[in-house]
């Protein structure tokens, strides 16, 4: 080995010890983004203070006649503090947005949810409260689930309020007008601090069902349409799976027990689960009228956050769709690394139809379509439906999605619009056309973060003609952090 070679070798080793693969990758992605003038990190940056109601500028198209109301959207909005930051996207403080559309104009407001976690972290000047993927730090104060409640996943309008939902603590009630926090919702005194999932299932015009998980036990919540408690039953589960969402027909609750199994008590929460694909995925079907009546179906191992509403066919087959991944790597890896400004390319979740047949067989039918955030026309929840609305276009060098689509289960046809890699598109919410009743007769409302403009936009599409592009686009003068889930209140 000559001297020059030795020096090269040494410097290579020195570089390797400093330049971790993550850092190298971040640097590479920054260079690529800079070349294109785009940086997806703008969509994961902090909002530092509440945003008062602010008009949005209409940049193209016209607001459709009859579209009026408020789109509430929730998602983490504050990740960094001087003394320490979150380690996972899912642990940012809940930020409620209200996009309000009236007389062809749109405005936006955003307000942080005043949780005990946020108060503790502000007082500590550091993120000290543990969470989904963030450890507890000195100064943490967690004496019940709601002390760690980030209230940052979804929103449910109910009883004239909006409830910010997490998944391991209580709903937190907000004023639907000024988005101020009213407080933790205790549905019955003896059930204070019990978990309530972020994805309740609402029967059209009827009851609201939700779950709360604790290892291999769950509470089944049944609320009236006004949010009053009608039932709370404890059930045992065949596996201590991670349950983020469930689904329902008009008569059944369907719990998908994926093999990401809680097998130890540790923090952060995500670290208490192990991926055990050999167990497969179990699907537990409960009768709403008698929760003791249950059936269990077996499917191959998969991971999913989200499912579409389910329906029962005339032969008794239950069907629903989900956005399925091979494993929990988004939850364990990329959900953390995005907070470091790093995205490791991973396959998109795939829209998949699941069938549970009366003879006990279950099957998966993958469409091959990139999909997340599945939604449907809520008037058909629990009943046969033809369409799924979803985000689409993932799997390249940046996180999240570039387009939205509807999938027609009858023809297999996709009606898709892509904004291209210059936008990160958020979940689309269906808004029914006043006076209409046919499935998908209405609009899709979806924000996106326009990376070139570094600004959040709100788009309205004709739900039946997605490929035609937005009917109208409004733009803010800044980007808000990408949100997770929303709900529309007409009026």
């Amino acid at each position: 080995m000559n001297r020059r070679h030795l020096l090269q070798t040494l410097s290579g080793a020195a570089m390797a010890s400093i330049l971790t693969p993550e850092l190298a990758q971040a640097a590479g992605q920054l260079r690529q983004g800079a070349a294109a003038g785009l940086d997806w990190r703008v969509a994961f940056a902090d909002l530092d203070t509440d945003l008062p109601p602010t008009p949005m500028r209409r940049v193209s198209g016209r607001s459709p006649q009859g579209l009026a109301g408020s789109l509430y959207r929730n998602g983490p909005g504050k990740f960094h503090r001087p003394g320490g930051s979150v380690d996972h996207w899912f642990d940012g403080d809940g930020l409620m947005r209200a996009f309000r559309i009236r007389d062809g104009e749109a405005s936006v407001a955003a307000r942080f949810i005043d949780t005990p976690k946020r108060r503790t972290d502000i007082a500590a000047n550091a993120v000290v409260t543990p969470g989904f993927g963030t450890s507890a730090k000195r100064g943490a104060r967690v004496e019940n689930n709601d002390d760690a409640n980030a209230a940052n996943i979804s929103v449910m309008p109910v009883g004239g309020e909006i409830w910010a939902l997490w998944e391991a603590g209580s709903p937190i009630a907000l004023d639907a007008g000024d988005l101020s926090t009213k407080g933790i919702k205790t549905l019955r005194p003896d059930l204070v601090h019990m978990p309530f999932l972020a994805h309740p299932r609402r029967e059209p015009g009827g009851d609201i069902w939700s779950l709360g998980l604790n290892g291999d036990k769950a509470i089944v919540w049944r609320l009236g349409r006004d949010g009053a408690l009608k039932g709370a039953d404890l059930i045992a589960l065949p596996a201590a799976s991670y349950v983020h969402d469930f689904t329902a027909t008009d008569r059944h609750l369907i719990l998908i027990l994926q093999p990401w199994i809680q097998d130890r008590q540790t923090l952060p929460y995500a670290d208490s689960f192990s991926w055990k694909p050999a167990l497969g995925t179990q699907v537990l079907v409960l009768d709403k009228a008698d929760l003791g009546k249950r059936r269990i179906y077996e499917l191959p191992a998969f991971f999913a956050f989200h499912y579409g509403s389910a329906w029962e066919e005339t032969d008794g087959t239950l069907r629903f769709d989900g956005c399925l991944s091979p494993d929990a790597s988004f939850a364990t890896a990329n959900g953390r690394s995005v907070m470091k400004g790093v995205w490791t390319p991973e396959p998109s979740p795939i829209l998949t139809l699941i069938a549970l047949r009366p003879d006990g067989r279950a099957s998966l039918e993958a469409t091959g379509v990139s999909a997340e955030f599945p939604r449907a026309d809520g008037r058909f929840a629990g009943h046969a439906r033809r369409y799924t609305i979803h985000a689409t276009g993932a799997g390249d060098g940046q996180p999240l999605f570039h387009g939205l689509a509807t999938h027609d289960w009858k023809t297999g046809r996709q009606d898709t619009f892509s904004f291209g890699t210059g936008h990160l598109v958020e979940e689309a919410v269906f808004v029914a056309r006043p006076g209409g009743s046919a499935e998908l007769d209405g609009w899709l409302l979806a924000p996106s973060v326009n990376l070139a403009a570094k600004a959040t936009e709100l788009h309205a599409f004709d739900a039946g003609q997605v490929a035609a592009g937005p009917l109208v686009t409004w733009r803010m003068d800044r980007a808000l952090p990408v949100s997770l889930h929303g709900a529309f209140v007409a009026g």
Partner: protein
Amino acid sequence: MPSLPDLRTMVLVSLTLSLSVGVLPAPAFAADETGALTVTFRGLKARTGAVMLSLACSEAAYGDKAPAAGQAMIPVSGDTAVVTTFKGLTPGRCAIKAFHDVNGDGKMGANPFGIPTEPFAFSNNAHGAMGPAKWADASFEVKAGDNAQTIDID
């Protein structure tokens, strides 16, 4: 987020025992060698039931592995101050665990997943993270003569 399965047992198992009023045996020390500790509770929202507390004067006792130095049940009603005094304490480090038995059933209430539903607190107003406050955070020096602790509960 996890539930806190061990919180109830770890924090307050000693307090769920039937409590007699916390008057200790006659002190074995001359009066000027022992400490008196007055404990005052503030911030109670409900003026019902009783505050139950356990005084531990060793880390082992704090962890329920040795007998407590004292226990007390302080009835809560009206505007009466919620206060109790322990006398004849051997000077040294002690810590307090307490809960407000709002419904007066003698037990610390818990929801179906085992999370306390009645307020609890520790000396020094120390807080726990997924469990009781640590001895290092909750313990304080009891000196010969008069000592005081004021604890915010609720």
